[in-house]
């Protein structure tokens, strides 16, 4: 059962930055859409270091196809 974690930073001028930790799921997207309808725009930072490392591992087998 994966835990979805979202980290928001609400700037003093009202701008909102959203950072997804771990793997992004539909729940995160649903929340982002809700926010955008109310806020207009949300700055997204999807690739945390954790997400990067997981993505790197997932892409490794693909390089085999280049032989």
């Amino acid at each position: 059962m994966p835990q979805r974690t979202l980290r928001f930073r609400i700037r003093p001028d009202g701008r909102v930055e959203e950072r997804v930790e771990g793997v992004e799921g539909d729940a995160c997207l649903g929340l982002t859409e809700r926010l955008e309808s109310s806020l207009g725009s949300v700055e997204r930072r999807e690739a945390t270091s954790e997400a990067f490392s997981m993505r790197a591992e997932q892409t490794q087998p693909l390089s085999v196809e280049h032989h």
Partner: protein
Amino acid sequence: MSHFSTVKTELRQRQPLLAALRDMGYSPEEGARQVRGYRGQTVEAELAVAMQEGGDLGFRWNATNGAYELVTDLDLWKQPVPIERFLAKLTQRYAFNTVLAASAQEGFEVAEQRDCQDGSIELVVTRWDA
């Protein structure tokens, strides 16, 4: 000649706007309200904060922009901060309340909340997915 000024905002929804005003210590009233300005002039707004001193604060729905606009008599501005600071603070509280409400609606719970030195608010929400 009217003394009222209108200021465009990005405030699109009523509930987080009401919550933001309450966070800042105001008591907003809903429904068609008369906003009072210079020499008893009034203008109508959907939402207003009646002030003891100075002009009232009104919020009028602007269908073209899909957002509320602030309507007030700037000559009578008596808030503790200038209007730019007031709107920035209001917009931050609006965004904070929006994030809180949307998170709860999507089943997320607040795990952490803190005020940062630069005036930002950091909020961490989590949810366990089956």
